[in-house]
């Protein structure tokens, strides 16, 4: 400690400037030293805490998981838990729920209500902590708890995308008819939501999801429309086809038109062929590409001439999709493709056809 004393510093500093410097160095080193000790202590405390927590979790799981499995098939007496254990039990209950079918889920829901876990879930959804709210929302969804509606609506409009999406999903699972008007508005704004979760919401919404999507699509501007049409393709929603056909006729946005053609190719039928053919000569390469790709899925043998013409397109992607579509036409054979390659005048067209022929040939 003598090393830190003012007299020591004064005696080892030649002048006031050096004394100030030495003091600054000492102060800096001691401060960082203190922070280092705190950080090291933090590391050890965290490690001890997490190890203890892991052991507690393991013991808790071994104690209560058998009861939950038993409760899936038969009525069991609700266990009495200490207040500190209730959240862990709710997490375990959710974990078991995620792996089982509907009938067994109902039995577990009955157990949860008998234990008052529905009230716990409501309380958690109202807490400030994100982890607590997420847990509460997931549990409320499983419990189909309509009392949570105001809280879920509030969370759906929160600024945390993951939480908003989870709350929307919970509302759809609880009452899709009631949920979708509100969810629709949020879906329109939530272009940065993970498509995987949005698809999940739409899948679980059934007919209400289709109606909501139809409404959104009918009113959507081009940028939103592209996003929605992409989602549409993911949920294979053929009910939307009339709207897609109508939008194809009036949209001026090539990207949206490309998405529509892609969706028509996947979902549409023979009646959409005319729409696709109309756009094979579009001035936008992305539209021509999607039209060629769609024709590969719904084309007729008579479309060979149209697709051969596209082999000379200036865009590589249009040429490639046209060549792929050619290979998929009804009645097309490898021999015919090879013969076509010989007569295609464009060098790039011959090259791309050679590639597709090589891809189509069966393995040796």
């Amino acid at each position, binding site marked *: 400690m003598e090393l830190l004393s003012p007299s020591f510093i004064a005696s080892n*500093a030649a002048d006031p400037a050096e004394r100030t410097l030495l003091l600054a160095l000492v102060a*800096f080193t001691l401060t960082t*030293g203190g922070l280092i000790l705190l*950080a090291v202590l933090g590391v050890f405390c965290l490690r001890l805490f997490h190890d203890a927590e892991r052991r507690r979790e393991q013991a808790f799981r071994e104690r209560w998981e058998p009861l939950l499995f038993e409760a899936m098939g038969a009525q069991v007496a609700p266990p009495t838990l200490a207040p500190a254990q209730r959240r862990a039990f709710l997490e375990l209950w959710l974990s078991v729920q995620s792996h089982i079918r509907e009938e067994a889920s109902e039995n577990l829901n009955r157990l949860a209500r008998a234990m008052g876990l529905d009230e716990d879930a409501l309380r958690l959804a109202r807490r400030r902590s994100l982890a607590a709210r997420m847990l509460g929302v997931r549990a409320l969804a499983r419990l189909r708890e309509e009392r949570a509606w105001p809280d879920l609506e509030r969370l759906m409009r929160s600024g945390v995308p993951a939480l908003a999406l*989870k709350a929307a999903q919970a509302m759809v699972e609880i009452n899709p008819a009631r949920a979708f008007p509100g969810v629709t508005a949020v879906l329109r704004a939530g272009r*940065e939501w993970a498509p*995987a979760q949005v698809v999940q919401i739409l899948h679980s919404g059934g007919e209400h999801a289709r109606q909501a999507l139809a409404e959104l699509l009918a009113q959507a501007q081009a940028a939103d429309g592209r996003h929605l049409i992409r989602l549409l393709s993911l949920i294979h929603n053929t009910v939307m086809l009339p709207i897609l056909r109508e939008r194809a006729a009036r949209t001026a946005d090539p990207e949206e038109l490309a998405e529509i053609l892609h969706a028509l190719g996947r979902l549409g039928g023979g009646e959409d062929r005319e729409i696709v053919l109309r756009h094979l000569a579009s001035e936008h390469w992305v539209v021509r590409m999607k039209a060629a790709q769609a024709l590969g899925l719904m084309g007729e043998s008579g479309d060979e001439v149209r697709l051969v013409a596209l082999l000379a397109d200036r865009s590589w992607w249009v040429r490639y999709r046209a060549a792929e579509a050619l290979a998929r036409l009804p009645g097309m054979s490898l021999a015919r493709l090879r013969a076509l390659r010989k007569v295609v005048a464009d060098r790039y067209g011959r*090259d791309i056809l050679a590639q597709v022929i090589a891809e189509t*040939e069966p393995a040796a």
Partner: protein
Amino acid sequence: MNWNIAADAFFWCVLIYVLAHAAAYLALNWLAWRAMRQQRAWLLAEGRAPVPSGAEPPISLIVPAFNEERIIVSTVRSAMQLAYPEFEILVVNDGSRDGTLRALVETFGLSPFPEAFRAQLRTEPVRGVWWSPRHPALRVIDKDNGGKADAINAGINIARHPLVCVVDADSILMRDSLQRVVQPFLHHPHTVACGGTVRIANGCTVESGFLTGVGLPRKLLPLFQVVEYLRAFLFGRLGWSPLNALLIISGAFGVMRKSVVVECGGYLRDTVGEDMELVVRMHRLLKAQGRHYRISFVPDPIVWTDAPEDLRTLKNQRSRWQRGLSESLWKNRGLLFARRGGAAGWLAFPFFVLFEWLSPVVELAGYVVTVLLAVFGQVNWVTAAWFLAACLSFGLLLSTVALLLDELAYRLYPHPGQLARLLGAVVLENFGYRQLNAWFRLVGMVKWLTGRRAAWGAMRRSGTWQSS
């Protein structure tokens, strides 16, 4: 000359520099912590890692390979097992002088394939493309040697998907690496590039090309690098992501939007830091155009790589990195304080110049000048000792905070013995390793300043992770 005044001024300059450096790094750590919490919110929502939904864009995985006969087949086999809805694997044999191409052709039954590709980026001549219908997602591009950047550009020319992921041949991926790294592209449609955390594979267990057990290296040199990666690559980079100011995505693993890479001119062939140079160039060009874009970083460990275990290889690596840093910053100096530079031009770029590029000079000068001044009696030994203590404690602080954040977020090394070894490394790295590193980086800087040709050099692979 009044040496006392000069000595004091020198010490004050270095102290202010160290203070500023510490403050900036701690701010980055805080930003990184916040970013990690937000990204983990999605995990909380699902209770598990992200699962494929079908909405993920297809990816072209590009693996540049030069003289990788020993490992290339296992690399491709493990890549084929990645859990991702749609992707292709493009191995670019960059004029290898060993049996890299032969190993691939024989193992996967490849035949010459008439690939009709469009050479949007200029590269050395492509001799041919190899493919087999038995492995339709795999293609091997055989070309004349042109270097790593040239090989990646050739892969980009032939890539068919909108996203390209460049992976080193010796990178060890996780099965869900692609699934994790693609998330920013799903959440933010304007994302143009995304990097992931690179961890040290030395001491880990690998089976069938995938990491199955996390361990620490036995030797001190790679152990120091474990700590270093935590400090610099994890929290250093993650902190820049929320500001959209990430200037580097590791060449070991990174995903980019192909159209943007082509638009920016692809990877530069005349630099050894091609990975950083491209990212900085993307910032510069996209900001100049006023485009809305994001360059992100995924904090979860998604790729593991071999760290040098001998000093010669480490020297080559660190010298090359410093040279690459110098080239990237110099070639894109237009981004520095650019009017529309945003956080990339006004925060990250100056940070990299001051605290990454200049730091080996300041650090080594600090030690050398201090000792010289004390030896020649221009400053007393007490001041010199406290000065050195200040420098050491600064290094210790950054490493222990990185360890604390890792403990909060990942606990990748669960055994108490591993933690003790890491803490030991945190202390010991400040007594020799950091200084040696600074010296190697200074060598790289001098080579760049004197215009000496750079080369990748040969990496002596340890393969200390057990593989089967």
